[in-house]
């Protein structure tokens, strides 16, 4: 092990350690308790992207991480700066996104004294982080940073917090920068057990109606090619969870799209017909399964996940395999190639193609009129397949899940676990920072966009142009839909009255604001946005009465799906 010893302040060590980890972008906001870090940051090569609210910094780091598959880094001050990060940290935690969140803290001499802008952020963040550090000795900062990046990015990824007291930032110490760290209580299993893989294959080869359920773990491990190869080798249809949307080309003949509360009709129907389900990188969330006791009750379920605590947590399975999704799918594929014999599944192939076609024909889309569906179908036509798409949360998100087909795997990002409104726009900015040469677009609603619209300042001033499509129904549409369906249309607290005017808002931030009144105008606006070097906000009025269907009402089973 190569060790350099130098005398550095805590802040200097932090910056150097971040650079050692390859962190060359940082989303943040300064404040009293992180000023020493900012002072060192100003002297470094690290690109600092200023936000107007710390939550946006966390979402940007999240978007950056989803695209680059490296930990995103965000920085805030103590107290309110730190607590403002929490929603973004929790969002990343629920979606298993690698992130390193750094907060300033009041000086060690003030901790516990209820000092100005003091908050026990380690205590606050513990339940929504993989780990939270509070180094109080500047000499430990390099190893802390190294551990933080290692924990955040390995195993089942997640956010890690480093809370650094102000006097630790300024104190100097003889400091070593280790090349590696060892954490004795943390040894994630990556390689799946060979015997278990063979067992899984035995079950799959005997299946008459096999199906793959692909979750977000496929995206996290970057196993798109392995998934496609295995599905094609087995001639096995692929449904996804919502988090897994787009890990498999949705225009592929074997693709069924997402299952779940607002899943594709064909996916929700066919998954109940499968006799063997190979579930990879999913936690069987309630949103995917509906009433879990009625979810594939007679199907033989094989579950592959890197997190052992997910096996048998939500869904009791027949065979659990702990391992990285990519490594496991590759092992399955290799094992399959060694064996030749399998059950004939021609009947099943015909069956799923038939169901798929009949379900697709259930949608009657009038492309001459503006609706959420026509907007998203047109968007797919106009947008290049390699464009990165984020979504906000609510109706816009579920419509995107249903009507926007992802072609290139791994180009669709949404807050699927925590369901954080306002995620999409700052995440799009983070995505654009990670992939500056690709178009990035946020599918939004008026309610969600409102929550984090201050990210416009960052987008414009830091030259990070993204497109936002606001399907504007002047409502908190999903809540309104529930009030319509379950509360006899007693609307309360859902009307937004078209305030603010998003075109004027965009202009106020020196961005481009466009309001469109037809599908043709919309297509033109997208093309304009794709060529633009500043953020483009497209406001497209849609009916406040349009519902998202199909719908599996919470507490009911997938078989009880309401189609319209």
């Amino acid at each position, binding site marked *: 092990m190569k060790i350099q010893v130098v005398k550095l302040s805590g802040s200097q060590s932090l910056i150097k350690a971040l650079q050692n980890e390859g962190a060359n972008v940082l989303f943040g906001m300064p404040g009293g308790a992180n000023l020493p870090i900012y002072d060192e940051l100003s002297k470094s090569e690290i690109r600092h992207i200023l936000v107007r609210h710390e939550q946006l910094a966390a979402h940007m780091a999240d978007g950056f991480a989803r695209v680059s598959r490296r930990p995103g880094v965000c920085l805030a001050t103590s107290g309110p700066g730190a607590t403002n990060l929490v929603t973004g940290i929790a969002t990343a935690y629920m979606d298993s996104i690698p992130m390193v969140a750094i907060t300033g803290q009041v000086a060690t001499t003030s901790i516990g004294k209820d000092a100005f802008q003091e908050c026990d952020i*380690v*205590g606050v963040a*513990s*339940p929504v982080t*993989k*780990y939270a550090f509070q180094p109080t000795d500047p000499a430990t900062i390099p190893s802390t940073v190294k551990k933080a990046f290692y*924990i955040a990015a390995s195993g089942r990824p997640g956010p890690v917090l480093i809370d650094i007291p102000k006097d630790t930032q300024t104190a100097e110490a003889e400091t070593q920068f280790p090349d590696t760290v060892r*954490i*004795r*209580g*943390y040894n994630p299993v990556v390689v799946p057990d060979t015997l278990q893989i063979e067992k899984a294959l035995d079950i799959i080869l005997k299946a008459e109606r096999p199906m793959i359920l692909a979750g977000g773990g496929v995206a996290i491990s970057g196993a798109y090619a392995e998934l496609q190869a295995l599905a094609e080798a087995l001639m096995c249809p692929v449904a996804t969870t919502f988090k897994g949307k787009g890990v498999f080309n949705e225009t592929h003949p074997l693709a069924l799209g997402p299952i779940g509360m607002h899943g594709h009709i064909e996916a929700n129907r066919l998954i109940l017909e499968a006799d063997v389900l190979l579930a990879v990188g999913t936690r069987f969330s309630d949103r995917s399964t509906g009433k879990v006791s009625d979810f594939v009750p007679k199907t033989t379920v094989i579950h592959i996940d890197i*997190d*052992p*605590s997910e*096996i*048998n*947590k939500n869904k009791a399975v027949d065979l659990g395999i702990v391992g990285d999704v990519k490594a496991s799918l590759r092992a399955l594929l290799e094992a399959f190639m060694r064996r030749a014999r399998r059950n004939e599944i021609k009947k099943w192939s015909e069956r799923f193609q038939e169901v798929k076609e009949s379900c697709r024909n259930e949608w009657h889309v009038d492309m001459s009129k503006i609706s959420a569906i026509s907007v998203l179908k047109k968007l797919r036509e106009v947008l290049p397949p390699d464009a990165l798409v984020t979504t906000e949360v609510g109706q816009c998100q579920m419509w995107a899940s249903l009507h926007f087909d992802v072609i290139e795997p791994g180009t669709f990002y949404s807050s699927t676990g925590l369901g954080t409104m306002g995620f999409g726009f700052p995440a799009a900015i983070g995505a654009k920072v990670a992939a500056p040469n690709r178009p990035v677009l946020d599918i939004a609603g008026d309610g969600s966009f409102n929550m984090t619209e201050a990210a416009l300042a960052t987008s414009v001033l830091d030259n990070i142009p993204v497109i936002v499509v606001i399907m504007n129904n002047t409502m908190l549409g999903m809540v309104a839909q529930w009030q319509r369906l379950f509360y006899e249309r007693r609307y309360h607290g859902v009307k937004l009255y078209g305030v603010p005017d998003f075109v004027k808002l965009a202009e106020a931030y020196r961005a481009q604001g466009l309001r469109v009144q037809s599908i043709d105008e919309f297509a033109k606006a997208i093309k304009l946005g794709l060529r633009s070097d500043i953020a483009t906000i497209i406001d497209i009025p849609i009916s406040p009465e349009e519902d998202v269907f199909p719908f599996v009402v919470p507490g009911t089973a997938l078989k009880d799906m309401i189609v319209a």
Partner: protein
Amino acid sequence: MSSVATKPVPAAEASDGSKSSEEEETSIGRQAGRSALETGANEKKQARDLVYAIVENQRGVLHRISGMFRAKGFNITSISIGESSSPDLARMTIVPKGDEAALQLLVKQLQKMIDVIEVGTIRPADAIERELALVKFETRDMKSKNEILELSNNLGARAVDVSRDSLVVEFTATPERIDYFINEASKSGAIKEIVRTGLTALRKGL
């Protein structure tokens, strides 16, 4: 498997640590021992195994682990923690509540924690289980004082503080024997305070 009742006197080395909770719910000792960490849900089947965890002996570990129990909705009967054979490691003994599936999830969640080095379960038949109780009695007359002292003597408990009208008894034993002692002794003198450490255990043999 025989269920251990509160009467008669359980053997010093109870071969089965399973607790029939309904009966014990009535004993003062159980209630006192439980009040701090349980949320009060009554489950049908008691997990019989004990869980031990070797954890990093550093600031915040107990917070993380108890926070995980709360966040995941695990109920436990008791938790005890202390330094282990190595000063940088602490050893926890957890008496879980809930069925076998809940026990499995609890073990997996503990294993997942970065501060946790090792997790294991101990079957009661393989376990040496001990708990320490300190019990303070109000003893207004010599008769009650002598009765408690005699009971203590018979069970292997000892008086550690004696004053004119009070008595503190220390008793290290299995939880069942402590329950028994408390129950019997309360007939001779009014119990003013009880403190119990919660169960701690080691596996027998090497």
